[in-house]
């Protein structure tokens, strides 16, 4: 896609010009035009306007340029290193890891200096990137694996941050403001710190320029050229992560700038590594400046919007658009053979066995009285059965959706949460609250399902051109999820007293289930279970690939569409109950298969029993762990699911090099 008219220099110039114009407009509120030069050079101490321009707006301008440039620069490096056009600090989970670390730091100490924040952010970012790179290496850096890992880490770290916010949101409001990526400055300290670090780190990275160009080739070729790819990767990853973490610690979570800038640069003609580093970096600086100038100019009208939220929203849209231009190589999702046991004897006992386990755990949860001793069992039961039934239903729904997702994406670790439908449901729930208040429980239910359907429609729009192939669908999921995360940060940062109530709703408060909700959930599961066996043949045929499916007379696109719709409804309903982050949809089918289930339908049914068990357990844990404070079940499931997912990727990667 080469458009001769739009070249990188012209693009950078236009964007920067627009940004400067908006800045001038914003500055005009504080200082008369004629005074601007004076304000920029030597502000009159008596005029607050001039002081403000000098001490707040100018540093903010500089910080936007520096941070945007650094994020884009590291984005190019990550993309080159990991051979993945969508790699950047946010998609690799570095930003979430840094945020979690800084959140934990803020909890343990009253006042935190910027330097301490940097160190914490660095630690968090390094942990995240080590996990992602380590797991990616095991599967030979398959692009989708990296993105999935990054997404899982973002989810897990994000859910940890959110759960901290649930109970400490008054302490953590400051952290969430930072987490939303506000670029407001009070002095030049951040600008100077950033500049100093960039002066050191960027030339350091450029030292590796030549080896980096070579690493675009595969491992064996690189080695035959005399390079040690493993060591090189480690060093460069480390330095690039340091730079990203430093930016994040000073400025907050600014997602997608790297992604947008680097891909935009590529689209308008920057091809070689050198061109991408140069123009990508400049575009990044310009784009962040533009985003910030929009926020600045809009503040008197719209109020304070953190720039990070703006970039997340714009970036998510950009990413959804970019999916159409992602090269096909990213679509290579080779799933390797699953661990199959030769004897299917286990299969006979598997389904009844898993159902029995589910029943036992349900009974336990319904009647246990460790904490609330001395209350009659029947009273306990009466109070608890809605939440237990709801949890079980949601778990089963997610498990069904997960089995189907894994089949149609032909990826054994795909998850319906990755489809972005659950994130869309979360957004719908939030929207419902701001629209209707806490009036009735029907509202969030309706909002959630609407949100899920809307996200589904977006996926349709974006992935239609690629006949709903797995790659684009997962990518749009990442984009929508990032959007949801940004908005949640915004809510907590706003200090709205409803924040914790709303936050909990998006996390899956099974404890809020009423008998009405429980009945609906159970009905949906039963319908889902009844429909599933009818899907067996299309699923089996689809599993053989598009060509074979077409040859057998099945229209792959249409079949996937119908299946996606089914998945969307189930996921949407389940999300309203257990929130978007539970990973049960990934875990349950995987556990079922690991236990020996074979064949589409047996796996699906076993998985629903497993999923129900997981959610019932999570619900119980949420109740018992911090009595009387309730931890939403979805979050607990995510705590288990995230590491489990990562462990699965690791062990799969070890088994076979191809992923």
């Amino acid at each position, binding site marked *: 896609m080469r458009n001769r008219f739009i070249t990188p220099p012209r693009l950078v110039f236009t964007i920067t010009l627009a940004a400067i114009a908006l800045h001038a407009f914003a500055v005009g509120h*504080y200082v008369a035009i004629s005074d601007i030069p004076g304000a920029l050079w030597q502000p009159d*101490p008596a005029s*607050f*306007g001039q*002081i*403000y321009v000098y*001490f*707040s707006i100018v540093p903010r301008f500089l910080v936007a340029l520096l941070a945007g440039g650094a994020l884009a620069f590291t984005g190019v490096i990550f993309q080159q290193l990991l051979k993945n056009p969508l790699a950047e600090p946010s998609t690799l989970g570095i930003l979430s890891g840094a945020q979690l670390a800084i959140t934990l730091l803020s*909890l*343990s100490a009253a*006042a935190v200096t910027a330097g301490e924040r940097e160190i914490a952010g660095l630690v968090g970012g390094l942990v995240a990137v080590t996990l992602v790179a380590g797991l990616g290496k095991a599967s030979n850096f398959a692009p989708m694996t990296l993105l999935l890992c990054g997404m899982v880490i973002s989810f897990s770290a994000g859910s940890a941050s959110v759960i901290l916010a*649930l*109970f*400490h949101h*008054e302490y953590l*409001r*400051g952290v969430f*403001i*930072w987490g939303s990526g*506000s670029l*407001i*400055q*009070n*002095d030049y300290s951040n600008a100077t710190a950033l500049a100093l670090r960039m002066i050191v780190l960027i030339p350091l990275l450029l030292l590796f320029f030549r080896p980096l160009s070579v690493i675009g080739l595969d491992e064996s070729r690189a080695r035959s050229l005399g390079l040690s790819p493993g060591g090189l990767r480690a060093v460069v990853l480390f330095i690039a992560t340091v730079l990203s973490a430093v930016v994040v610690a000073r400025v907050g979570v600014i997602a997608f700038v790297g992604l947008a800038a680097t891909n935009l640069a590529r689209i308008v003609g920057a091809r070689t590594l050198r061109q991408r580093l140069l123009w990508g970096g400049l575009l990044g600086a310009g784009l962040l400046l533009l985003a910030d100038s929009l926020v600045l100019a809009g*503040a008197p009208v719209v*109020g*304070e919007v953190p720039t990070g939220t703006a970039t997340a929203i714009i970036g998510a849209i950009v990413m959804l658009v970019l999916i159409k231009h992602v090269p096909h190589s990213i679509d290579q999702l080779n799933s390797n053979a699953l661990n199959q046991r030769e004897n299917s004897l286990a299969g006979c006992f598997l389904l009844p066995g898993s159902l029995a386990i589910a029943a036992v755990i349900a009974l336990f949860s319904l009647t246990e009285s460790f*904490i*609330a*001793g*001395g*209350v009659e069992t029947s*009273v*306990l039961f009466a*109070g*608890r059965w809605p939440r237990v039934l709801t949890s079980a239903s949601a778990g089963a729904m997610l498990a069904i959706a997960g089995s189907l997702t894994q089949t149609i994406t032909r990826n054994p670790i795909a998850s319906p949460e990755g489809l972005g439908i659950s994130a869309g449901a979360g957004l719908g729930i939030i929207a419902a609250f701001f629209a209707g*208040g*806490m*009036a*009735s*429980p029907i509202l969030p239910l309706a909002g959630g399902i609407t949100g899920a359907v809307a996200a589904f429609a977006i996926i349709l729009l974006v992935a239609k051109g690629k006949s709903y192939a797995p790659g684009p669908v997962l990518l749009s999921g990442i984009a929508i999820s990032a959007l949801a995360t940004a908005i949640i940060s915004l809510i907590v940062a*706003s*200090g*709205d*007293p*409803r924040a*914790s*109530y709303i936050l*909990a709703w998006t996390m899956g*408060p099974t*404890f*809020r289930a*009423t008998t009405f909700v429980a009945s609906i959930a159970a009905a949906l599961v039963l319908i889902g279970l009844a429909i599933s066996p009818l899907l067996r043949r299309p699923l089996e045929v689809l599993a053989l690939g598009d060509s074979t499916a077409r040859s057998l007379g099945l229209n792959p696109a249409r079949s996937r569409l119908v299946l996606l719709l089914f998945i969307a409804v189930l996921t949407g309903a389940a999300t309203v109950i257990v929130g978007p982050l539970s990973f049960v949809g990934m875990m349950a089918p995987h556990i079922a298969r690991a236990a020996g289930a074979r064949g589409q339908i047996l796996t699906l049914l076993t998985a629903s029993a497993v999923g129900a068990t997981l959610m019932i357990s999570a619900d119980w844990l949420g*109740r018992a762990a911090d*009595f*009387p*404070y*309730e931890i939403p079940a979805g979050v607990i499931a995510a705590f288990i699911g995230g590491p489990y997912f990562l462990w699965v990727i690791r062990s799969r990667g070890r088994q076979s090099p191809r992923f």
Partner: protein
Amino acid sequence: MSDARYPNRDYRLTRRQFTAGLASVFLPAVATASTETRRLAVLDWGWAESLLALDYKPFAVAEAPLYGDRVVTPALSTDTIDLGLRSWPNVELLRALKPELIVSQAGYGISAERLGAIAPTLALPLYGPARQPLLAAEHALKEIARRIGREERATDYLELSYSRLDAIAHNAKDYDGRALLIIKFTDDRLIDIYGAGGLFDDVLKRIGIANAWDGKTNNWGFATAGLEAIARYPEARLVIIEPGPPGLFLQSALWNALPAVRNGRVSMIPPTWVFGAFPSAMRFAEVLRQSLGIA
């Protein structure tokens, strides 16, 4: 078992306390004139403090340990049972405790219908379309008093409070008459500014001091903005709710360039619960009076 959340308290719902609370269910109902033994579960701090103002001890309050840090006075006794989050208390615990009355804030947290299934519920609004939380707090106080049979107490309390407010209003005439900007720092860059629709604003109206902030406020009566918002009201006096900005910030050029700071028109007041009810309003009036140097 101490908890980082509640640095001032060493608290946890122990089995002992729980069973003690539970046991009281089975205590024979003491038929006395004083209704001290009525078991009240309170889900909102504003109503908890209202009860305390009526000399009545609620036996269970949501997020009881945190109350001491945020609301401070009137003080809650240490053996108050913790009901869980204010936005969603533990329903099972509520059910087990079998309270005689549940007091909640209408439109927040668990709906009144659901609570009604557990025990008789009094859901009182604080933030309604009228946007007058002080008035709502007054109505609520009266209603609570009626329910627990302390109407006289309430009447006395309100009379006292209003005459106190009038006294402050009278003395405030000696105050230099500047409008106030009441702010709280969320971090060193963003501030909450309290305006129309909030408790503090109602108090200001009552004591006749102007609130400088005329911008939009949200449902709870505050707005969040950067420092430049303060600069729009150069003549106003700044009232900062502790803790203020970090020391480093107080020395910065930006802070000192603010007209209010330059001319020394800054006052600090100790933490006051802005989302509270009548007692919080009175506390605010007192600390404000003190810090402004009004008699």
